[in-house]
């Protein structure tokens, strides 16, 4: 292995067979990730890919980089730890709308404002797939097909990109699993943009939300250049229908990273205890 040939997206695919249902949108997100990583051109060992629990959160195992399949809702905290401890690594995190916005909502909000340099892919299917079909924070209030909320939740859904903007995310994009090439491009841009990048991917659950097959018709690419000011992005998102794909915001805040300094030895510190 002395001559380095560039890695293809196949080189980023593992041999573990996905547990996903045939037709699940997550397959396309997987291809988008491997494509983006191939284009990124970093060696596999320099990538860390972190997730929580859910159908979507299984994705790291299907790639061939270092990964961590953590507990439900904590992917962003693990990912931040990886990056803060090892600034040299490229850090990706991924998970579902339940993992990221319900149980993981606090880490989502604080990851946006902390602005550690990493890229977070939310695979949004507006449902808890893994636990067999309950409403998530992105589910419409009148969706009645969950046994837990048979009359619908009656609760307004959150719009992940709007929340991310209010919380301070530095790069916000939306993609659709049906268009994996665009998603790959957005992921790559997110990785290359400093600070915290959110890639919100509409990724249909064909089992519990078969009607999401119609998303194909609803999505439309943004024709505007990415907003660079928060106010501008806020204004645009206020009238967004939730199906605009593309880069929605590209801010210029500096990424957060504590400096590494060598100002003293442990012996120096110990001397303060001597009296």
């Amino acid at each position, binding site marked *: *292995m002395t001559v380095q040939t560039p890695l293809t997206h196949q080189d980023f695919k593992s041999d573990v067979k996905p547990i996903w249902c045939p037709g699940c949108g997550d397959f396309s997100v997987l291809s988008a990730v491997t494509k983006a990583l191939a284009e990124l051109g970093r060696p596999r060992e320099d990538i860390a890919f972190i997730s929580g629990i859910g159908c979507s959160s299984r994705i790291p195992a299907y790639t061939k980089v*270092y*990964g961590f399949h953590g*507990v439900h809702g904590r992917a962003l905290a693990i990912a931040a*730890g990886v990056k*803060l401890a090892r600034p040299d690594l490229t850090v990706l995190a991924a998970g579902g709308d339940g993992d990221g916005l319900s149980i993981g909502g606090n880490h989502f909000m604080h990851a946006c404002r902390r602005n550690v340099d990493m890229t977070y892919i939310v695979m949004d299917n507006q449902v808890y797939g893994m636990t067999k079909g309950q409403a998530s924070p992105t589910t419409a209030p009148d969706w009645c097909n969950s046994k837990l909320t048979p009359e619908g939740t009656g609760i307004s859904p959150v719009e992940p990109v709007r929340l991310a903007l209010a919380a301070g995310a530095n790069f916000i994009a939306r993609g659709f699993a049906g268009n994996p090439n665009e998603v790959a491009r957005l992921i790559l841009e997110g990785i290359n943009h400093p600070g915290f990048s959110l890639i919100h991917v509409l990724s249909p659950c064909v089992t519990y939300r078969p009607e999401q097959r119609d998303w194909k018709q609803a999505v439309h690419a943004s024709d505007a250049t990415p907003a660079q000011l928060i106010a501008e992005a806020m204004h645009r998102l206020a009238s967004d229908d939730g199906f605009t794909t593309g880069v929605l915001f590209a801010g210029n805040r500096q990424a957060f990273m504590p400096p590494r300094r060598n100002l003293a030895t442990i012996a120096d510190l110990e001397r303060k205890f*001597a*009296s």
Partner: protein
Amino acid sequence: MSGYSVSVALTGSGGAGAMTAGQILLDAASKAGFYGLMTRSMGPQIRGGEAAALLRISTKPISSLDDHYDLLVAFDWGNIARFAAELPLAANSLVLTDPEQGEVPEPIAVFGARAAELPMKSIASGIPGGRVNMVGLGAAAVLIGLPLDSILSVLTAQLGRKGEEVLAAATAALRAGAEAAAILPSVTKLGTAPKDGVVRWNISGNEAAGLGALKGGIKFVAAYPITPGTEVLEWLAPALDKTGGALVQAEDELASINMVIGGSFAGIPSATATSGPGLALMTESLGLAVASETPLVVVDVMRGGPSTGIPTKSEQSDLNIAVYGLHGDAPHLVVAPNSISDCLYATQWAVYLAEALQTPAIVLSDQAMGQARALIGKPAESPYVAKRLVAEANIENYKRYALTASGISPMAIPGTPGNNYVADGLEHNERGTPSSQASDHQSQLDKRAHKLDAFDYGDLWADIEGDAEIAVVTWGSATGPVQEALLRAKAKGINAKMISLRLILPIQPAKMAAALKGVKKVLVVEQTHSEQFHKFLRAHYDLPKDVAVISQPGPLPIRPAEIVNRLAAWK
């Protein structure tokens, strides 16, 4: 009355400055060559509440507060009922009271100690910028026989920056108090300070734990503040910053423990510190660290529970959650320092063990050690530093969770070519691929238990002192009073052995059996309400038939006399 030490309590409310006076007294004792210990008792107010500095100064290293205070200097009596129980006095103790503050109140008067009046406030008001606490401090120094010079030199060092006026006022007040003390009744006096040439450290248990973590090799800390664990972090934040590491304040404990998992997964020894409520929030993810075999250290500085409980007071009642609080079968390490200096050693050892065994270690300190300051001899160097078994590059068919003889598998650190794998909290096979097969579950459960059981922990598992048919089995901060009690008991002709467990998990049945060989009676000493430690011992060790238990909740410390009395009753 132990003969080699004097105990002093300084109390006052609001800005009376009891804590400042106590700290100066401790520093001065150090300067004068004594050993000592100081704990603090604080009210719930953030500022201006009642406070007591509780000191014991001695001519040799000490492990515990005494049964009572020889001298109580009360700057005022505000809210005294709230903490009078923490200020036991003997008949020949002396209460120094300011006549302006009224009579010695009932909760203190009940002790039946001698009392003397010292008009501290009026003396102070006669000195421009003079403060009550300096007057009291001067009197106390004279009464216990601490050279005034040592206090003056501390004052000079500490107040020098604040300008000459401030220093002059403090000095004058101090001297005035000292002079006024001449006509006061006498109290137990300090002996001559030892000239042992040992460099004294003045350190708190929380600082020691921070230092232990650093010396063990911790480079990354993520944490959320909580009393009384915060000072571990406050010491570590600048220390890590100066030595090439980093500390990050997280949004909550769920984030902090998972950031720590991330840091460690990435190859950097990582830790956090917290207290009971924070530990409770971390248990789910500690289970993840167990299952994914990610090393890390959590320092839990225990406080009164349950729930929010008594944040500023000590107790040992997080033993249960530390040992048993993870769901599923989740073998991990629990290490308990048993003195302020051991906060350093035990934490450093915990880092070493966690890294060697690729599992989380909980360090069980408590408020009594964490927020107390001790004058100790400079601690010796410990050999324990983080050393993880890492995988070299490009291992063919790399198996992160390979079944090995030791149960420990080489861990590939991100950046290592060729060994990428996915760490998982789902049950998995040797590669790390999720598996719900009975055989994988059994073999990985076996592996995770075996690596801990098979490891050689040497002698550090417990501190064992003496040899007798009676053994006192204890742990953590309860150890200090036990040590003192056994010294006193010996003087009375009662021999007992002490077994103070440092390694709570994994259990060490063979070592305990050896330690209990020939022991006929066991006295368990602990600071919980429900005998958590006693029940833990019963569950995992074979004790002799005859077992007695001293188990009391916080905030009152266990007093050596209680232990001596219990042993004497057995005789």
